[in-house]
């Protein structure tokens, strides 16, 4: 059982990876902790100072479209984001979120407003998302298969580490 409660930061449709973090900033560093200050600077100046570990991203359709650049996920992770709710995700952003241990939850987000407190609870069967302001509860299917395996261990890095060490052990035997 996983439980989380956060304050909604609402974004629109088609938020591309260039908007999340501009390629021009990567000229100076690829360290997500340093890039955090530039999050969505072109479309939502000032967001970088609002966003923290108690925030939850609420987006429309096609979140994370455009480039596959993973720093666009890492930078949100560095800002403290653990969950992204969106009507839909771009394919590569979805994968990158899973790989970095951020939960990408697909659902109808149209009733959630900026600043709403949103609770997310998850067990093996389903994910429940509750907007405290409206009391609206949305039920989504739980993660399964490979995605569940990667998320449950916290991302692709611990996942591969575990796999590699198992290979190593079986070779040793």
């Amino acid at each position, binding site marked *: 059982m996983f439980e989380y409660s956060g304050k909604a930061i609402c974004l629109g449709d088609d938020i591309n990876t*260039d908007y999340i973090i*501009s390629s021009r900033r990567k*000229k100076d560093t690829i360290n997500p902790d340093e890039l955090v200050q530039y999050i969505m600077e072109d479309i939502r100046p000032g967001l970088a100072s609002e966003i923290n570990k108690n925030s939850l991203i609420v987006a429309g359709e*096609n979140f994370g479209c455009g480039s*596959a*650049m993973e*720093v666009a996920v890492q930078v949100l992770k560095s800002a403290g984001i653990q969950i992204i709710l969106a009507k839909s995700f771009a394919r590569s952003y979805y994968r990158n979120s899973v790989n970095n241990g951020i939960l990408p939850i697909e659902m109808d987000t149209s009733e959630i407003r900026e600043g709403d407190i949103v609770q997310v609870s998850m067990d093996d069967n389903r994910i429940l998302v509750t907007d405290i302001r409206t009391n609206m509860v949305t039920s989504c299917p739980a993660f399964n298969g*490979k995605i569940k395996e990667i998320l449950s261990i916290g991302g*692709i890095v611990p996942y591969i580490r575990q796999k590699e060490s198992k290979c190593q052990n079986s070779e040793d035997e």
Partner: protein
Amino acid sequence: MGKTIAEKIFSSKSQTDAYAGDIITAQVDYILTNDASGPLSIDYFQKMGAGHVTNPERIFAFIDHYVPCPNNKVAGLHQMLYDFRDTYNIQLLEAGQGIAHQVFDELKCVAPGRLLVGGDSHITTHGYLGSLAIGVGASDLASAMISGELWFKVPQTIIVDITGRLNRGVSGKDVALYLLKILGSNGANYKAIEFRGNGIADLTMDDRKTICNLATESCAKCAIMPIDERAISYCRDRGLPYDDIVVSDEDCTYCREIHIDLDKVPAMISLPCSADNAVPVHEKIGLAIDMVVIGTCTNGRIDDFAAVDEIIRMSNSNFKTETLIIPASATIYNQMIERGYMQRLVSKGAMILPPGCGPCCGSSPGTPRDGFKVLSTANRNFLGRMGNVKAEIYLASPITAAATALAGCVTEAERG
């Protein structure tokens, strides 16, 4: 039950009987990365702690985004790639060789039936020759480098039926923008696009690359052209294997069918700030343009510059816009010199930038000034994409770009 091309290639690479929706682990034939995704990928690789790569002769890193190296920070990122090459013997293509997607192809990594993954979304380009070419993030790339395999969800397929013949002055770029307008910015999300139809015979191999390149702007996982006679003779000329030609079964399942009649495709232009926001060029004629960019992985190939040369040779005037030319590779650069294109471009007032991504995503020089309207042959026109949020970016074909540079405003190329 019949299979699509994507289902067949995934079945073959995973040694399973795979259909759309299945999650499989597939052997990857070649891996592509660059100086944008590569350093991050190396970072993940180190954290994963494996200390080995599988098939280093099939892993290619390209220095293309930041060319020539603009500062000491990027120099450090480039050094990471060199150090990784020295430790693990992967292949490294240095600054000035060209854009990953062009050089990867020149290096013969692309052939029918292969599974290619890359840390760059525009790897979809390589579906032009029947490869399944899929963009992934840096962490997926690192895990593929370690194990030589990667998990995938087998995608559903949208079939695009192409008939008819291209009008004069219309190219693969216009077909791509026309298709994007139909699909929308996420119309192919999680899906493969497969092309078929007798109209494909009319598309050059470079046109096919452009169409597959832009498929990613509809969020497609991959885009696959069929292997027709033209593609086979192209493989034969270049010494590429074509014994693994994959065709879809007649009774396979497509999730959507789209028909494009080439006779009805006009020259197209995408308005800010999304490539699918496309209209016929004739609706925007006269719009003043300050800067024209011709090149990138979308339209920096020799056919593109041949088309540009044809336009500028018909004109006595010089370029009225700031005009940047970026050959997609050193090979293309040389061909342009040999054919006299460079001399004519420079005499008209163009600036020639080194082979690479150029200012397309603001990574290399060529930033537009405040208030500039830029017409580019690239693939993305997001706000701030070229490094300045106060500039507007329009996307069009090399033909339209050349005519526009000569006129100083959006122009449809003269139809001789």
